[in-house]
């Protein structure tokens, strides 16, 4: 279970303070797949970063009773000078997994082949996303936080990530920021609508999509 309680996040701006997240509370249970819907800049990524623990909330708390992935988005979570193998070694060390297993499973998913020995800065953004995704799958988290990245990949990446997240990992929880109504309808049981820093859980997916389309 993950529980956000009154989570608020302020950022200092050139002028004044920007409240990116405003008093958000919700609970996510084991195995639940929740879609995060919201316009660009509504606070989806900030919320995901705070849930994952990368940033701390200004006010409020996040309780985590399952292991969470790092936010899987356009930022890979690796230094551009690291190679794919370095990143695998880093993940293996930090999360306490054997390196050959992490490397093997990541590359099975990412299909980078020879590029595993090249620095990440030489990767296309699709390759970076595949690497980060593959590495996170190799760690076996209880819950995956996915920030839009699935929708951005090519069809092969989309198909493989759907298989991994929705079919092979039925018991994994998933928080998925996404704009595609089809994926939400087929795989998600709830939706979290984020709008201007506020957020609310909807159990009725159709209602949530209707609201989202009206934003």
């Amino acid at each position, binding site marked *: 279970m993950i529980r956000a309680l009154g989570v608020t996040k302020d950022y200092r701006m050139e002028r004044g303070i920007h409240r990116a997240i405003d008093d958000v509370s919700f609970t996510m249970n084991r195995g639940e797949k929740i879609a995060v819907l919201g316009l660009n800049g509504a606070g989806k990524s900030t919320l995901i970063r705070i849930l*994952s623990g990368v940033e701390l909330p200004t006010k409020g708390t996040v309780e985590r009773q399952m292991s*969470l992935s*790092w936010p899987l988005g356009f930022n890979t979570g690796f230094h551009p000078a690291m*190679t794919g193998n*370095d990143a695998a070694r880093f993940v293996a060390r930090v*999360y306490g997994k054997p390196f050959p297993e992490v490397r093997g499973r990541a590359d099975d998913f990412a299909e980078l082949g020879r590029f595993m020995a090249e620095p990440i800065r030489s990767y296309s953004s699709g390759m970076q996303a595949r690497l980060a995704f593959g590495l996170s799958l190799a760690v076996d988290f209880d819950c995956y936080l996915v920030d839009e990245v699935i929708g951005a990949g090519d069809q092969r990446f989309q198909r493989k990530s759907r298989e991994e997240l929705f079919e092979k990992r039925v018991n994994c929880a998933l928080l998925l920021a996404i704009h595609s109504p089809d994926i939400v309808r087929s795989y998600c049981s709830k939706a979290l609508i984020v709008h201007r820093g506020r957020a609310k859980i909807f159990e009725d997916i159709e209602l949530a999509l209707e609201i989202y389309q009206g934003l």
Partner: protein
Amino acid sequence: MSTFLQCLSVQFRVIGALVMRELQTRYGRDNLGFLWLMGEPLMFASGVLVLWRLVRGEFQQGIPVITFTLLGYIPMLLFRHTVSRVLNCLRDSSALLYHRPVTLLDVIFARILSEIAGNLLTFAFAFGVLFATGLMDWPTQPALVFLGYFYMAWFTTGVGLVLGCLSDRSELVEKFWTPLSYLFIPLSGAYFLAAWANDTWREYYLLLPTVSAFELMRAGFLSDYVRSYWDQPYIAVWSASTTLIGLYLFRSAHRHFVVR
């Protein structure tokens, strides 16, 4: 207790992973790889050693020039290079903070540790070569050399923590650091023996925190040539208080830190 030990083992694992990442990305795997950790300071040091030896001869005021220069130059590099590398280190490593086990403190410790390790290797290698070629003698009191180096490393760690954290909050830190790091050269105690000052000035000279560290190292090597002066509690208090202030700053750092 077991949870504390678990935390400790995670900490070591994470810092280990960060140090490895540091070595891999900074020095790459080509040619000498991480041995370049020593390359840069060694090239600097050999230039300085050769020049001073040529300009000043074998002895200066009765002290062997090569020993004196090496003992001043390499520990001074430790402080200047480490602090320079620590400025903006948090921002540069921001991507790695995506992994929750990795904390800001781990990132900065990893960087400080890899700098100290590189400097220590350089010191050992340079001494090895100079000793083998008969240009330096074996230290008369090795323990004092280690003690002096230990204080130098501790003080560097403390200042590194403080400035590393502050540099993330204000760009002024970086602007002031450049002139201060040059000012540090004459004020560090690296090239001026406390024995050269008269009694009144020596007291003031020893108020500069790192002078005692340099004097301790020199005492270990040069006790047959010159008297050294140091104040251990004084440099220990400096090192401990900068370290504590640094740790305190890091306590609140995460709350303000924006991962880019």
